[in-house]
């Protein structure tokens, strides 16, 4: 089987799974880890949103976070670049080790974290500016050296958008299609040269053709970046990811919904031979 599977089909890929050792029942820690997540709990005020997350997210691969609505996938991915800091009531406990540093150590500046870890959101959110200025926004903030034209071109090429927009770089990004806008947002995140790309349901507002393009793009990008993607679309997780974490939700006192990880393993294993019956029920479509 080739490294890149056909993205338009809905078969479970054997793809990258073969490159990995056989998955174990417990979360395993591959040699190369980009995020080492240890005992992470997230509270919103008094509400515990996710609990007990222990994951070793691999470097240079795509990790998918799947699970039913409200299970804390988005909450968790927002911990990885400290976007939860923007919600005043949010509190993150535990450790997330990134390049040997705890992202939640007191001396870490969240702004610096976000410069290294890019993020793409559910709904494309281009700035109301030209395509060029959208891409150049991040590099300008960082004061990146070199020709801005080159930086913009390179980012748009990496975002697989250059050929479509090279003749209208100065037009407003709001004039693009939804799929193009989302690829612009990906290119914008890549322009600052991060080493991780977080994607929070990046295709949920897109049609299948645009989705296919973005999935192709993700497979190309994982050569250079580590990618973490939240998705509701199990076929998507199966098509693109190397590792998959299945989240679900438990109802606590006062109907509080708290998310936790049921199973984390190679995508292939999660979709063909999961250890936990809850995972199997979910991926085979019996629940959720």
């Amino acid at each position, binding site marked *: 089987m080739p490294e890149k599977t056909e993205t338009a089909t809905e078969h479970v890929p054997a793809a990258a799974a073969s490159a990995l050792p056989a998955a174990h029942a417990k979360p395993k820690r591959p040699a190369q880890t980009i995020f080492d997540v240890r005992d992470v709990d997230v509270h919103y005020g008094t509400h515990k949103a996710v609990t007990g997350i222990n994951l070793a997210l691999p470097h240079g691969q795509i990790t998918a976070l799947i699970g039913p609505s409200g299970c804390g996938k988005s909450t968790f991915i927002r911990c990885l670049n400290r976007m939860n800091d923007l919600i005043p009531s949010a509190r993150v406990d535990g450790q997330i080790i990134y390049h040997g540093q705890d992202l939640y150590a007191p001396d870490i500046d969240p702004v610096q974290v976000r410069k290294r870890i890019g993020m793409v959101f559910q709904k494309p*959110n281009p700035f*109301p500016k030209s395509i060029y200025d959208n891409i150049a926004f991040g590099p300008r*903030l960082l004061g990146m050296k070199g020709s801005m034209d080159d930086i913009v071109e390179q980012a748009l090429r990496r975002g697989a958008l250059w050929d479509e927009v090279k003749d209208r770089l100065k037009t407003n990004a709001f004039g693009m299609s939804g799929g193009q806008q989302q690829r612009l947002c990906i290119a914008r995140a890549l322009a600052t040269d991060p080493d991780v790309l977080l994607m929070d349901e990046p295709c949920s507002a897109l049609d299948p053709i645009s989705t296919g393009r973005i999935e192709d793009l993700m497979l190309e990008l994982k050569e250079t970046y580590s990618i973490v993607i939240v998705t509701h679309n199990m076929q998507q997780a199966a098509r693109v990811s190397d590792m998959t974490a299945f989240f679900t939700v438990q109802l606590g006192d006062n109907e509080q919904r708290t998310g936790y990880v049921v199973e984390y393993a190679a995508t292939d294993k999660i979709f063909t031979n999961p250890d936990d019956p809850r995972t199997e029920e979910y991926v085979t479509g019996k629940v959720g």
Partner: protein
Amino acid sequence: MTAAQIAASVIPKASGRDKAGTSVFGGLMLASLALAFLGLGAIIWDFTSDGLSVVTWDFITKFPSRVIPENSGINSAIWGTIWLMVICAVLVIPIGVMTAVYLEEYAEKDRWYNRMIEINIQNLSAVPSVVYGILGLAFIVRGPLSLGPVLAAGGITLALLVLPVVIIVAREAIRAVPPSIREGSLALGATQWQTIWKQVLPGSIAGISTGVILALSRAIGETAPLLVIGAAVSPRFNPTGLDSAFTALPIQILAWTQDPDREFISRAAGAIVVLMAILLIMNSVAIWLRNRYEQKW
């Protein structure tokens, strides 16, 4: 049953009652609209019929005279109004926008002091303008600042008067910038201030400037606060600086309407034409700005 009968039974015709209700309600709405337009038309007719012939270049460039109506103009009133507008804008734009930015972007909404500020601003925007005049007289003309009845005092008083309105409008414009834009900017490693300066304010500039212009056009139409703080009546000189005595168009209009001489009253009508023209231009600019630069999200 014929096909038509079947159709009629599936989708019944509107009842007579429904139709009557619709037309009565429509008629009432039209009538209220007509009443509003009639009132406006009557006012415009009243002062233009009397005042339009008065408005000549001489009228605009001459100083007011207390004795000869034909020689009486609104030069000092126009310059006073322009000065007041500039002072007011210089004060109200930075303070109003910064307050709005604080309340929308920084303030924790559930803190009691932020809620108090918010309620206060709402209430201040409803305070009658004459009360601001008394405030200006007590604290700016006399009292702590003791500036005397000069342009600076007038400008500050008008700025205080329209500040709540500017804050409210600016907050609405800032709130209209979707959170996803802020998230996108912050996720690229922008600080909160960079996000505000480079995304939020540019995205809300159309709404803010529209609000500022409308607030300024309210300020230049105000008579009561200027009267209370002691604007000059019919001065035969233009303001030369912030510490000059001054008058303004509404004050000049009031002074002339109180004169028993009929001729002076038509001068007042002429000044109203000029004031209305300035207001119309300002409001048109506001509408144009909004249509041209308003951001559709």
